[in-house]
């Protein structure tokens, strides 16, 4: 068990999401940064579908009531276990009674705490994610608060101490491991994400599209797991657009009548009727999830083949992390070196 000692709003139990129910209006939910959650689970030898805790506002403190192992991924929150720093993208064992503290992030917006065996909450409609809008799933269908006690599932793997391996290791984070092909670099405070044109793209005049691509869109404080709203010059269609409600996925960029774009995120409605200018590609979704309020987003036009190869690079990264974690736990240093070398090659270092 683990006990939440201190917890601001917007902290919830999430897994990779609830799929197959858009057609009855159910949102996908799940972690905003699914890549970070997946890496956390891989570091611990969990199933990829295990639930972790998404932490958006710090400080966050939790006391463990049992020996277990944890991983921290996503935003760097200067975490400490008792008084010892724990690096981001790192796993280690904890003893009963120890307290983990996460502070305001220095990079990124969302941190993920995963535990060996996963957070044990009931599976509702195929997922342990909290549906924060409809109030079901996760821990009692709501965000976590001080005093909540969470059960930890049975770990799938033997303790590292039973082999020659270690429980104390980390991996290269996606920010350095994944290539950012085609993304403009060196724009301080601006995160670039790639976009595929959507259904109403051609219905906007050339001048509006040009403005859309070259603007650094400021993320308003009114942005959350449902969607991000932006401030910038209005992007208006050539004529009024009548659009029937249609299915949505996270990443869809809608243009409401105000001309100020909105990006649908993981808690978005399953359908909506605003014009769809384009969609942020899945492989850049973690970049969006880690964007901070008042930061800016630059949209970069891409093609479907590029989007698929970006997704393939993400899959390769997860495979590499999996091999590396297995090697560390088994304790075969020679093999660790060869995996490290392959990570460096992929990162182009």
């Amino acid at each position: 068990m683990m006990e939440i000692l201190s917890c601001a709003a917007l902290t919830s139990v999430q897994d990779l999401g609830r799929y197959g129910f858009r057609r009855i209006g159910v949102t996908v939910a799940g972690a905003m940064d699914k890549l970070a959650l997946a890496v956390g689970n891989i570091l611990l030898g969990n199933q990829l579908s295990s639930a972790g805790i998404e932490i958006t506002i710090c400080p966050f403190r939790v006391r463990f009531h049992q020996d277990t192992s944890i991983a921290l991924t996503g935003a760097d929150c200067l975490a400490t276990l008792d008084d010892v720093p724990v690096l981001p993208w790192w796993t280690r064992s904890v003893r009963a009674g120890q307290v983990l503290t996460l502070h305001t992030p220095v990079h990124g917006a969302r941190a993920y705490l995963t535990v060996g065996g996963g957070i044990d909450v009931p599976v509702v409609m195929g997922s342990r994610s909290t549906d924060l809008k409809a109030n079901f799933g996760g821990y009692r269908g709501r965000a976590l608060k001080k005093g909540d006690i969470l059960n930890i599932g049975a770990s799938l793997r033997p303790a590292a101490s039973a082999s020659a391996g270690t429980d104390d290791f980390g991996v290269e984070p996606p920010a350095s491991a994944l290539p950012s092909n085609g993304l403009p670099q060196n724009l301080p405070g601006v995160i670039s994400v790639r976009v595929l044109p959507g259904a109403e793209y051609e219905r906007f005049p050339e001048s509006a599209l040009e403005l859309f691509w070259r603007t650094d869109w400021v993320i308003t404080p009114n942005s959350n797991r449902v969607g991000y709203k932006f401030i910038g010059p209005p992007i208006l269609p050539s004529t009024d657009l009548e659009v029937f409600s249609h299915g949505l996925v996270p990443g869809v960029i809608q243009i409401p009548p105000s001309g100020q774009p909105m990006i649908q995120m993981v808690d978005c409605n399953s359908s909506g009727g605003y014009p769809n200018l384009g969609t942020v590609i899945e492989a850049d979704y973690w970049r969006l999830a880690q964007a901070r309020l008042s930061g800016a987003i630059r949209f970069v036009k891409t093609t479907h083949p590029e989007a698929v190869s970006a997704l393939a690079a993400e899959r390769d990264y997860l495979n590499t992390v999996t091999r590396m974690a297995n090697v560390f736990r088994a304790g075969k240093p020679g093999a660790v070196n060869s995996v490290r070398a392959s990570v460096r090659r992929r990162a182009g270092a």
Partner: protein
Amino acid sequence: MAERQNADLPRISMVGTCALLCESTGPLDIEHQRRIWALTEEVSKWKHVLEVMPCLNNLMVIFDPFETTIETLEQKLIDAWVNCEASPVQGKLVEIPVVYGGEFGLDLQESAEHARVSIEQFVEIHTSADYVVYALGSHPGFAYMGGLDPRIFVPRRTEPRLLVKAGSVAIGGSQTGVITWATPSGWNLIGSSSLSFFDPDTEPPALLEPGDRIRFRAERIER
């Protein structure tokens, strides 16, 4: 994607890396919607298709981009649309009891005034039509319905309400329905229903499905 000349061919566009939107270019009516249902059933059987989301005159197809290409899927969707027959689905009949007006029907009077009828006549028109569920979506258990009498079309409010109570019966333009959970909405609130439209712990979780026939029944009118 290539522009198509033939008016009957669907319009297909990307929704990110792993989804396509296939839209009928015809009018939104029950005949076209029956083809959308038939196409949904057909596409759901295809290999590498992970999820199909039918909506109003369109469907979104989520697929595995490592197993198929958008070109292949686009062609298959066009062929399937051309060959599909309207689905004969006749859903169940569901009666929705409604308290019109009162605390949760704040816009009933204004809506009746807009339609230039009395409140009683407005309720009579709303309860005498047969509605068909075209699709579910937006929020859990919410049904898009066709069949609203044009005499009581009421344009959406210019200022949406920030929070509308679950169970609100409402009209937005040419559509009517029951808002199934607390949400912002620009629709006109004409009443409320205590019927449960969604429960994650039951199977199936949603009360309604596409093709179901709906009748609203007036429990009473409150002023």
